[in-house]
């Protein structure tokens, strides 16, 4: 209970010589926060050198309390010399700062518990609100089976800002176990069946997630058995304190069995369930069933039956005598194709501008019949008319004419929009009343309603909103703007007046940052778009939030004003941050099954490799927020049968203060044997500068310096001494990435393009002068609900320049290799291109080309899928020997031709991407020479054998091929 605070002066008046009327010699404010008298001078009516007056004291107290900055107030008068000193004693209102929940159990997210407590940053809080927050956290813990949990509340007050950080420390105790489940209502199925379907287990903890998932599964179970109106809700959870167990009571009503049929047209059961409102909303009420008519009609209209209609009939048998049958009888009508449309009579508005208003869709690759119906046509006419009206053509008329035998083909539709524009109204004069000249200047010429411009009510309303938005962004939160047009003149000219009432301006008094335990205040301050003394601007608050999120070191950023319901116009802006965990450990894995180099040395194995399994494991340890700065240090390791990579990198975002510019320095050690011909060891240092221009595109510039050595060379013995020497490669280069895919792991639409270019230069320390340019472009199209067309083209060249020998120029491990699960599936891993005439092993090349086309068929509920693919391409000896239209090999030493492969693949979707099994067949896979005696540098004719790569290749991997 709060202590008693009184007007002591009045009490003194009762029992001591009255102080009323004595001259006030001093007025002070004493509070439990850093609040000063000068901040509230305007609220205090009783002034110094005035007689002490009870009505002025009362008015002062009321004014002070009305600011919302105080919880309790009292005025005390003390004799001071000949006069009296007036002291306002106050208990300040504190506001919610950082809210944290600590020691939450593993199945309860601390951030969710904190958010669910209902304490919002900057809101005033009280003992009651703290108790309510604690009760909510306890309730959330109980819903996750922690009935014995206790919560302690502590606060850390900041008197300089009147902010209070609130900490809830949880002692969870042991979770309750589920003792049993009771079903009430009319479930229509045995309890054991329901428990099995819900996947609830006695003896386990009944967390909120398990409960909800179980209820969803029950719902899906009933839906599968045509009980569209079934409901399942958790009615009660009864906790037994003594045994720390609980019983769950679930109310289930199966509802009637309702079978839905479609007559007159074919639609698969799965498709029907995915579009019909009765299934989507689990309801068979008359309105929902009626909505199904329009949905079905639209479904068939999208397939070219532009006049399709669906009619509902409902048979309800007597109670207990069978299922209810809902039938949608579809009349398809003739099938057509909507070819296109054009505009006629549009002199003032270009067709490109009008196209955006048209809702009809002509036939295209991903919509073979186009989209047309009367409703779309009517709405398109309305939209075109509205567009004209916004451009000042108040009397514009649009009349469509439909040609249903376009180009003399029955069922081919074409629409002509005949437009009568009429006269266009213009603005003669525009005035803004009630706005100062300085404020008006800031508005600039952004308004559409300007003298000489077309006039329409929509444009004037839009400008009204623009003026209001401008005022709000300059601190005039309570501004109001009205607009009044005059009557049009005979020459269709209109005067427009905007009346502005700005209201009071709100400014930023100070900015307070909360929650940064490790991050430097300077790092945060650099990202602030608000500063003390500026007008309060909602856009700036949002921008500040976004910039802080972009640092990548905060889980949550909140930017708001303190005490938003208060009447003050000098606002305190609060920036509350929740720092992310500074150490994170990531791990992953994968598997490749294809023709691979065998374990250990390549000696004695076939030049085509052998089928094997290569598991992959990766680990990544990141440390962010280094030294309070948004910089990251990473240690990464990738391990597989074919490759072992260890790397360390240091990343500096917003490099030199430029947003979107990132510097990364990487060092790595790599041992790989993913090319049959050799094992390689690589030590590399790279420095890269990346600029992100948008969410979709980025540019990167890099310098790489690496030392590469090869061993276990499977080549002509005469070349081994030369090629086994270590090479230094120093390159400068860059990359451009443009990614518009909807899902990088399994895209169904969009595009992905990259261009990489590097130059190795002896002037930088490289052993050879050569370049490398590789470009790739992939596009994805959804042709229907179950068909996706995906294509990918990749091309690369490695030209040699300077004094480097053209034939030997590019060091062996730096050459272009291709083949395997992630590229041309005609070949196994890195097997494409020229081969050594003695050993038969691949040598790589200086040019490559790959073109892939896939038809992807996602099947049952997107878990299973089928793929038809065609891969074409090869690695070529040099760019001069690109032969894309040559499909026949001229002898076993000719590798410069286009190898084709077609195949079939199965996909199984998992949360980490699709598991893939592909079988490829190549009719023109190359044959090659090998010598039975591989110790010679020139093979005698009798020892030469001609081998051929396998025509069939099998691949098992994770992820799409592109």
């Amino acid at each position, binding site marked *: 209970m709060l202590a008693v*605070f*009184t007007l002591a002066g009045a009490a003194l008046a009762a029992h001591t010589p009255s102080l009323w009327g004595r001259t006030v010699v001093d007025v002070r404010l004493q509070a439990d926060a850093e609040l000063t008298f000068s901040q509230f001078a305007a609220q205090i009516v009783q002034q110094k050198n005035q007689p002490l007056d009870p*009505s002025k*004291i009362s008015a002062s107290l009321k004014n002070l*309390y009305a600011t919302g900055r105080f919880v309790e107030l009292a005025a005390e008068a003390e004799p001071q010399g000949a006069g009296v000193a007036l002291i306002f004693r106050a208990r300040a209102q504190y506001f919610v700062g950082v809210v944290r929940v600590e020691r939450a159990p593993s199945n309860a997210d601390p951030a969710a518990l904190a958010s669910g407590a209902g304490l919002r940053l900057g809101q005033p809080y009280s003992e009651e609100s703290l108790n309510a927050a604690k009760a909510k956290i306890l309730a959330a813990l109980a819903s996750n089976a922690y009935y014995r949990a206790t919560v302690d509340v502590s606060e850390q007050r900041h008197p300089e800002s009147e902010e209070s950080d609130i900490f809830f420390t949880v002692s969870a105790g042991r979770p309750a176990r589920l003792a049993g489940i009771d079903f009430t209502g009319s479930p229509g199925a045995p309890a054991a069946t329901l428990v099995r379907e819900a996947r609830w287990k006695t003896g386990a903890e009944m967390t909120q997630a398990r409960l909800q998932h179980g209820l969803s599964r029950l719902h899906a179970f009933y839906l599968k058995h045509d009980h569209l109106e079934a409901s399942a809700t958790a009615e009660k959870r009864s906790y037994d304190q003594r045994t720390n167990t609980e019983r769950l009571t679930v109310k289930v009503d199966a509802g009637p069995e309702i079978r839905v049929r479609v007559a007159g047209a074919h639609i698969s059961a799965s498709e029907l369930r995915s579009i019909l409102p009765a299934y989507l909303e689990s309801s068979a009420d008359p309105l929902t069933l009626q909505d199904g008519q329009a949905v079905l009609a639209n479904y068939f209209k999208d397939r070219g039956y532009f006049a399709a209609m669906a009619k509902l009939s409902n048979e309800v048998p007597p109670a207990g005598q069978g299922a209810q049958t809902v039938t949608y009888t579809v009349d398809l009508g003739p099938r057509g194709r909507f070819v296109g449309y054009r505009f006629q009579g549009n002199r003032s508005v270009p067709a490109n501008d009008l196209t955006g208003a048209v809702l009809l869709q002509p036939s295209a690759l991903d919509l073979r019949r186009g989209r047309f119906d009367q409703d779309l046509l009517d709405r398109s006419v309305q939209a075109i008319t509205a567009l004209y009206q916004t451009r000042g053509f108040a009397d514009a008329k649009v009349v469509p004419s439909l040609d249903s035998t376009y180009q003399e083909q029955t069922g081919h539709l074409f629409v002509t929009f005949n437009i009568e524009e009429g006269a266009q109204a213009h603005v003669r004069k525009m005035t803004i009343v009630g706005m100062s000249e300085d404020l008006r200047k800031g508005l600039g010429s952004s308004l559409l309603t300007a003298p000489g411009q077309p006039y329409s009510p929509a444009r004037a309303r839009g400008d009204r909103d623009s003026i209001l938005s401008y005022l709000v962004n300059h601190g005039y939160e309570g501004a109001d703007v009205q607009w009044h047009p005059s009557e049009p003149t005979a020459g269709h000219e209109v005067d427009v007046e905007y009346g502005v009432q700005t209201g009071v301006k709100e400014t930023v008094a100070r900015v307070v940052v909360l929650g940064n335990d490790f991050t430097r205040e300077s790092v945060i301050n650099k990202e602030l778009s608000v500063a003390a003394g500026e007008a309060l601007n909602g856009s700036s608050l949002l921008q500040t939030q976004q910039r802080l999120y972009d640092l990548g070191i905060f889980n949550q950023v909140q930017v708001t004003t303190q005490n938003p319901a208060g009447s003050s116009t000098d606002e305190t802006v609060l920036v509350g941050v929740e720092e992310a965990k500074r150490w994170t450990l990531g791990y992953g894995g994968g598997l490749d099954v294809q023709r691979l180099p065998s374990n250990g040395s390549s000696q004695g194995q076939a030049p085509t490799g052998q089928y094997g399994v290569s598991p992959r494991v990766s680990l990544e340890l990141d440390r962010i927020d280094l030294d309070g700065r948004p910089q990251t240090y990473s240690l990464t390791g990738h391990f597989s049968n074919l490759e072992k990579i260890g790397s360390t990198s240091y990343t500096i975002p917003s490099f030199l203060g430029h947003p979107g510019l990132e510097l990364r320095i990487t060092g790595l050690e790599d041992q790989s044997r993913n090319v049959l011909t050799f094992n390689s060891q690589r030590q590399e240092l790279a420095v890269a500068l990346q600029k992100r221009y948008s969410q979709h595109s980025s540019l990167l510039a890099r310098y790489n310096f690496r030392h590469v050595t090869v061993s276990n060379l499977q080549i002509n013995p005469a070349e081994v001494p030369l090629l086994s020497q270590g090479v230094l490669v120093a390159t400068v280069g860059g990359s451009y990435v443009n990614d518009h895919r909807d899902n990088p792991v399994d895209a169904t639409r969009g595009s992905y393009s990259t261009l990489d270019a590097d130059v190795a230069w002896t002037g930088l320390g490289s052993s050879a002068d050569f370049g490398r340019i590789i470009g790739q472009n992939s596009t994805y199209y959804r042709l229907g609900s179950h068909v996706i067309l995906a294509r990918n083209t990749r091309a690369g060249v490695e030209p040699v320049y300077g004094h480097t020998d053209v034939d030997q120029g590019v060091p062996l491990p730096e050459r272009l290799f291709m083949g395997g699960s992630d590229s041309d599936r005609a070949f196994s891993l890195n097997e494409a291109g020229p081969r050594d005439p003695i050993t038969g092993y691949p040598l790589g090349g200086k040019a490559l080309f790959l073109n892939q086309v896939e038809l992807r068929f996602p099947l049952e509920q997107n878990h299973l899928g089928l793929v038809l693919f065609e891969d074409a391409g090869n690695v070529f000896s040099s760019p001069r020997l690109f032969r894309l239209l040559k499909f026949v090999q001229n002898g076993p030493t000719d590798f410069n031709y286009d190898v084709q492969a077609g195949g079939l693949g199965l996909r199984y979707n998992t949360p980490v991407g699709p598991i893939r099994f592909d079988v490829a067949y190549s009719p023109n896979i190359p044959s090659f020479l090998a010598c039975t005696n591989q110790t010679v540098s020139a093979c005698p004719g009798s020892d030469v054998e001609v081998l051929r790569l396998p025509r069939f290749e099998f691949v098992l991997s994770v992820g799409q091929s592109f």
Partner: protein
Amino acid sequence: MVAAVGNTAVTASDVEREYRLELFLDGKEPENDADDATLKQVRQRLIDRILLEDEERADAIEVSPDDPAVAARWAGLQKRFPSAEAFAGALKKLGMSEGALKEVLAEEEGILRLIDQRLRPQAVVEPSDIEAYYHRTFVPSLEQKGNQQPPPLSDVESRIREILVQQKIDSLLDEWLKGLRNRGDVRVFGSAETGGAR
């Protein structure tokens, strides 16, 4: 400060003044300082008044000091004092001007109209209620006073109806005020007594 309703502070002076005003409107003068229990009741009535004034503003009810109802109340108030001079003297002691007092009466009239507007439609009285009151309360009370021939029901029905309506309005008002206190941001700080220096 002794209480707060939302952002409106209630000071000890406010409670003290309200206490004196209530006595004045009843035609009395305070002789001693009120005791704690009395001031608590006054504080509560003041809080209720503030809550009802908020509702009055929400319903856009405004009563002017020149309203005839206010004038009638003014006249009735004056009659409670033996003379015009006594009335003027009591007003001076209260520390209020005539204009300020008429404002107070206008506000009270506004609250009465608010209550009537909101609650009278809900105060439904059935004929059976009137009859029961007539037989169980009205007639016995007259008989106790020696009146052996009470008037017939038909003669007093409208009076009894009004009495019962007022009782229902009082009961509804209690519930309404409870709801307003629960919904509103009302804080009370300890005792209403002005005794800090004792």
